[in-house]
């Protein structure tokens, strides 16, 4: 088995990159980040040079508000790892986030707007 093959698990894909990006951390519990939490970079141009390449990529993607899921998909990194990167940047106040608002019961007005929007597709 070559050195390259050893680092590639057929089912899991490349394993090395995730660990390199976060120093082995795969889960972040510091902030309440779910799939649709919106994140946006405070000043990506100023902050990108101050951080590691993977973190800089996150800042670049977050120039406009994006959901955590979108960031993970664009970075092509697992969700857990993406949340760690985002958490690191939140800690340094380079990224701010807004939790998705979840009402107790479905909001009829909003649902009607969603319905109209889908019909107009």
């Amino acid at each position, binding site marked *: 088995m070559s050195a390259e093959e050893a680092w590639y698990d057929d089912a899991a894909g490349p394993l090395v990159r995730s660990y390199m990006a976060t120093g082995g951390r795969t889960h972040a519990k510091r902030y309440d980040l779910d799939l649709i939490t919106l994140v946006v970079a405070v000043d990506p141009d100023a902050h990108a040079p101050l951080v590691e390449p993977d973190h800089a990529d996150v800042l670049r993607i977050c120039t406009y508000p994006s959901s955590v*899921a979108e960031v993970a998909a664009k970075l092509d990194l697992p*969700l*857990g790892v993406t949340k760690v990167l985002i958490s690191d940047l939140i800690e340094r106040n380079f990224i701010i986030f807004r939790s998705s608002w979840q009402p107790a019961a*479905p909001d009829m007005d909003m649902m009607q*707007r969603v319905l109209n*929007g*889908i019909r107009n*597709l």
Partner: protein
Amino acid sequence: MVGTVSEIDPLRTEEVITETSVGVDNLTGVEQKTTTTVAMDFGRITINPDLILYLFGTPGQDRFWFMWDELSQGAIGAIVLADTRRLDNCFAALDFFERRGIPFVVGVNCFNGAQLYNVTEVRNALAVDRRVPMLLCDARERDSTKQLLIALVEHVMSDTRHASR
């Protein structure tokens, strides 16, 4: 299906999970850990600047239930796609949403326009409650996906109206 209505090309987000299994051919019975990535399709529809609809698509087998857990929090509801060639593949998803009382509709996926069953037959085969909307669909067609989404939102609104009486 996500791709037919999403304004962006479906993105894939992945989660690395560790599965513990006991190998059938493992004589010592020692548990083996395997790592797999679970992929989920992700799409978006911007209704207007302050209202965005996110769509998440996952495989239907029950080992992916943990994804449904996180996805269904705050979700309007779910669309369960039934493949008439493998109806049992959606049992786990149907169980999951029924047990948690999460609103859902069922799309009976017809491949190549071939309608092998009618909705009543599938409803009986899947033991789905009559009040749950079930539609024939083609997951590759944008208009078909639209109809499923509309059915879901109308179903949720109707349930909400009944509940508030």
